């Protein structure tokens, strides 16, 4: 039985991080780097203790990597779990160096087996689940599903002084290009990929979007290489991250980089003529067929 730490820089997935760390069989201690409200939310998500490092408004969480690493390393845990966000990873990287820990992206499950720590992780863009083990400490970035809060009690919160933050300053925060685009707020989005043969054929997809009252989105090549759709409508890892009620991917293969942008969608539909397209492994529904036949048929079925 070994205790484990989690690193929290945002409210998302705190309960899931806790649950993953709980796999080591012992207590779970959370270090929260952010405002008091984040510490309060974390305390309610299931860890046994919360250490809170308050950030000043002009300093990002990464500025506190040094003090956080010293605090965790002094406790010598066998496992540390962080979100795979830019901030969480930087903090975890410093912790790993201090602990002399192995670093494992894609962590899904942790367990202790004798003197070994066993980690199940997603590898190769999630195509494979690999089990790895080590006798030393591990730091992993969680890549699993979200989880519900454990129990109903709240952990105690201890504020920890961190006076020696690194010289990193947030100078400006402004809405990103396209942040106010309708696609971000749309309940339904119809997105188009390289399956479309000509720019003029966008009208076919627009017709479906009109019937559904949907916004148009696209995969990266359609906006970046072809320039057929405005860049602020590109959905994916480095594009828009959207959470519509319904997302219809037309002629999109469904690469992980694209699907990362629709992780928050309630229902995902894929339309592709390739039955082996990756979209059918992550979508809820699909139609295998030529989009030039399927999209008009879908319009008709929707009673245009």
């Amino acid at each position, binding site marked *: 039985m070994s205790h484990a730490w989690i690193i929290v820089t945002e409210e998302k997935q705190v309960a899931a991080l806790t649950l993953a760390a709980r796999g080591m069989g012992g207590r779970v201690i959370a270090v929260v780097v952010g405002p008091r409200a984040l510490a309060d939310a974390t305390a309610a998500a299931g860890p046994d203790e919360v250490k809170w490092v308050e950030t000043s408004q002009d300093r*990002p969480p*990464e*500025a506190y*990597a040094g003090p956080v*690493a010293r605090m965790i390393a002094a406790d010598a845990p066998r496992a540390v779990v962080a979100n*795979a*966000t830019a*901030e969480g*990873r*930087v903090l975890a*990287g*410093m*912790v*790993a160096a*201090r602990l002399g820990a*192995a*670093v*494992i*992206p894609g962590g899904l499950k942790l367990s202790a087996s004798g003197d070994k720590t066993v980690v199940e992780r*997603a*590898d*190769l*863009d999630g*195509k*494979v*689940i690999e*089990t*790895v*083990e*080590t006798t030393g400490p591990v*730091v992993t*970035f969680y890549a699993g599903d979200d989880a519900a809060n454990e129990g109903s009690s709240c952990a105690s919160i201890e504020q920890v002084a961190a006076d020696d933050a690194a*010289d*990193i*300053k*947030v100078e*400006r*925060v402004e809405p*990103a290009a396209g942040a106010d685009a309708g696609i*971000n707020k749309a309940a339904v989005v119809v997105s188009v990929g390289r399956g479309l043969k000509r720019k003029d054929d966008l009208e076919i997809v627009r017709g479906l979007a009109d019937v559904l009252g949907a916004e148009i989105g696209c995969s990266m090549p359609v906006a*970046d*290489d072809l320039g057929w759709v405005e860049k602020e409508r590109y959905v994916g890892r*480095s*594009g828009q991250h959207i959470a519509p009620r319904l997302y219809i991917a037309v002629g999109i293969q469904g690469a992980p*980089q694209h699907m990362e942008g629709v992780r928050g969608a309630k229902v995902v*539909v894929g339309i592709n003529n390739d*039955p082996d397209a990756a979209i*059918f*492994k992550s979508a*809820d*529904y*699909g*139609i*295998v*067929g030529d989009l030039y036949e*399927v999209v008009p*048929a*879908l319009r*008709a*079925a929707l009673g245009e």
Partner: protein
Amino acid sequence: MKTVIVYKWARNAEDAAVRSDGSVDWRNAKMTAGEDDFAALEAAKAIAGDDDLVGLTIGDGDASWALARGVLQAVSVTDAPHLTDNASTAAIIAAAVRQIEGVDVVVIGDSEEYAGVPVALAGLLGWPAVAHVGSAAVSDGRVRIIRKQGRNEQTISIAAPVVIAVSAASPEKNIPGMKEQLAARKRPITKLTLAAVGAGCDDRLSSTATKLPETTAARVFAGDPAAAAAQLVAALRGEGVL
């Protein structure tokens, strides 16, 4: 600022074939340029300005990649193996960075597949770091980066030394031609070994099993487009999303 651009430091996940039993066959075990390497190089050039920009690569990939893209000198740790532990890979890169005198900034692609390497590198160097960076520049003696965070864009300034992990927003558009490739061959590559940089190659992680993920495959309709569309619409109405 004297800048090191780290490139070709990992295998490309697309070179791996996953068999039906979940085992993995690496058809090309060589280190290749990652999808973020070019964006990292552009950021490194912007940071270095007129100062030195040194390429650093590990493993058996072609080290001339950066030299064909305007970098004038490179260091290659030729016997570095692929390691599962991202911190062990970072330790090799950190050891090589320490061999290069007076480095202010290390720029590296923020690979999603090997997301632990850039941040472990910063930890091992004991330098601050920022990740998921879109672009970078230098002004008033500080590195200024812009990155997307949710629906916002942050401008962050950092004092050197620092590690900058860059995420590509789009792929490289202008691949170097023959002229640049030939010029690259004349540029110096300092070849080092793990022993020379004082790095080990022990992978602290043992892989004990691989399997295919349990996926909830989509409910797929096929055949006559009209019938398939009608079935889909009925299903979506049942879900309450139409």
